[in-house]
């Protein structure tokens, strides 16, 4: 495998006064499945178009395999882009679609057909070469688009929310499919999505973006367990946020004074906090437990509603205006359901909670 590291070196992209991407610095290794995760409008598609060559960065450089890509057109880069709506050509057959990049390069009709059939085998759809694109199902179109992108063996495949048009069931199936194809061909996948489930299940590493800024880059479990900003903590997975001011710090533990009482959690990344600094403590719903007695790190709350979801039960509670969600694993014992308005005491271990400086959070 050639060295096809993608390097973003202080990349900023501006449209007039609007900054779509602000100073992105990133290295994506050859053969990696890398995702950009963020809400719509966060700049991830802009960044992808910049890597693919459809636009140039306003500042900074995009390097692929150590080579500056400035002025190199999309067709001259070792990348292939899969568009959000796939952009299959409706008036060509499946085989013609897949072999179009080869047709452009002047390959003979016979070679084109042979390669198309090979690729159809690779995506496990043999024998559909003569069908029309309109005769395919959503998942099949998806795979045909991947085959077409792989026809000329790019080193890097860029995917712009390719699953967003599919229904939920198919989307989940295609995640496994995409991951399998990526491991089979060994090509770098750079994947854009606003769906954290997709990013977390498929990727080797994830970059979380918000308002043009890359907030955190890391493996999915790191992003989930050790968020570095309030945005990442609130965007990736369910999280409860309790805002307050720093009361004190000992070792890696910070205590906050909050409307729900004093609570403690880990200081993210070993950061030092000043007393009185505005912070938020994040605790996952599955780390909150119901306890009988009040003590340190407990919250007295009122139950608002609960929903039984089979494997777990979700509770929504309220304390001094702060909404708290709990997720409890159902053990099989038929516990008497609690009535809304019941008084609850919630507890959590400080090492499961993360304290982060106050910042913008993901809207629900």
């Amino acid at each position: 495998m050639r060295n096809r590291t993608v390097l973003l070196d202080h990349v900023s992209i501006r449209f007039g006064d609007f900054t779509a991407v602000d100073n992105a610095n990133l290295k994506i290794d050859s053969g990696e499945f890398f995702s950009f995760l963020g809400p719509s409008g966060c700049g991830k598609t802009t960044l992808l178009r910049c890597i693919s060559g459809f636009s140039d960065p306003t500042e900074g450089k995009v390097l692929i395999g150590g080579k500056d890509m400035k002025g190199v057109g999309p067709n001259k880069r070792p990348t292939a882009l899969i568009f959000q709506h796939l952009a299959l050509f409706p008036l060509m057959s499946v085989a013609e679609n897949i072999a179009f990049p080869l047709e452009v390069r002047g390959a003979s009709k016979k070679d084109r057909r042979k390669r198309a059939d090979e690729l159809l085998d690779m995506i496990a759809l043999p024998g559909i070469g003569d069908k029309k694109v309109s005769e395919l199902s959503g998942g099949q179109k998806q795979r045909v688009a991947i085959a077409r992108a792989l026809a000329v063996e790019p080193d890097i495949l860029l995917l712009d929310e390719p699953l967003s048009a599919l229904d939920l069931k198919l989307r989940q199936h295609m995640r496994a499919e995409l991951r399998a194809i990526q491991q089979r061909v060994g090509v770098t996948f750079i994947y854009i999505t606003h769906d954290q489930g997709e990013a977390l299940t498929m990727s080797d590493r994830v970059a979380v973006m918000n308002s043009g800024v890359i907030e955190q880059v890391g493996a999915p479990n790191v992003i989930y367990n050790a968020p570095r900003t309030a945005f990442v903590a609130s965007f990736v997975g369910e999280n409860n946020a309790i805002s307050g001011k720093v009361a004190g710090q000992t070792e890696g533990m910070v205590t906050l004074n909050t409307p729900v009482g004093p609570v403690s959690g880990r200081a993210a990344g070993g950061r030092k906090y000043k007393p009185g600094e505005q912070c938020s403590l994040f605790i996952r719903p599955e780390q909150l437990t119901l306890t009988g007695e009040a003590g340190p790190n407990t919250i007295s709350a009122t139950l608002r509603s609960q929903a039984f979801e089979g494997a777990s039960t979700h509770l929504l509670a309220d304390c001094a205006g702060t909404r708290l969600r709990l997720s409890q694993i159902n053990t099989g014992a038929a516990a008497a359901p609690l009535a809304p308005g019941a008084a609850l005491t919630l507890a959590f271990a400080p090492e499961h909670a993360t304290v982060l400086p106050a910042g913008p959070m993901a809207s629900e």
Partner: protein
Amino acid sequence: MGNFRTAFNSFAGRHGMGVALFVAIAVAAWVILLIVLPQLSMLDYSFRHNLPASQIGGPDDTYTLENYRYFMFGNDDGLNTLDIGILLRTLIAAVFVTILDVMICYPIAFILAHSASGVSARLMVIGLIIPFWVNEILRAFAFRVLFGATGLINSVGLGMGLWDAPVDFIRADVALYSGLAYAYILLMIFPIYNAVEALDRAQIEAARDMGAPWWRVHWRIVLPIAKPGIASGATMVFMLTSGALAAPQILGGPSSLWFTQVIYQWFNQSSNWQRGSAYAVILLLVCIAFVTLMMRVFKVSVGEIGK
């Protein structure tokens, strides 16, 4: 008939019986009174002798193929090369004008659908439509002035030293082709625009990402999508051009006669409506046959044109 009934019933179900009846009667009146009956009477005329008024309905008023025979063989029994030649030249000229319009209008329609946006697109459309407020006769005479021996084009060309003596654009039929091509560009632009607008821009970018040069993008992706629109526009432009009268009358050179002018002569100068009808029917049938043949060659179905 069954199809009409189902269509009528579903329309009545949706909009009420009153509206459905009105639409049905209006459409039927339009089709029968304004299209079918006049054409049938022309057809009937074309098979009759040109008789003085007193003999009409008399024993001599029989059906005959004489008018059609005359088109083929004239007075003596040799081939009527004059009229057949004019018909062929008219068709070839109409094809030429149609091709010219496709070449002019395809880029305009594509730019309108995919490059122009907001204000510039609206300005383009207005710029295309407003000049057609000027009526056909005035436009034709304006072209005559424009292309005349002392016209704007000749003065500019002579002034810039591009040519030495005034070029007779009228005799060379340049004025005629320009006038006809311009007269029907809207009928070409809008069907192509309609067809091309449906194209997802990402398809062009995808093709570009795969390294396709612009001509291949158009040949393989845009043109196939534009094809029904081109077919629809080309049919209209061809039919209207071959049936045009004013522009050939005003802009045509002294030596070139349009087939419609021959028809006009039979009706007006020769007062032979029967022969004029036969010639008109011949023009219609030949045009329909030609269009059908072309649709076969380019693999376009009538249904696609209706889209």
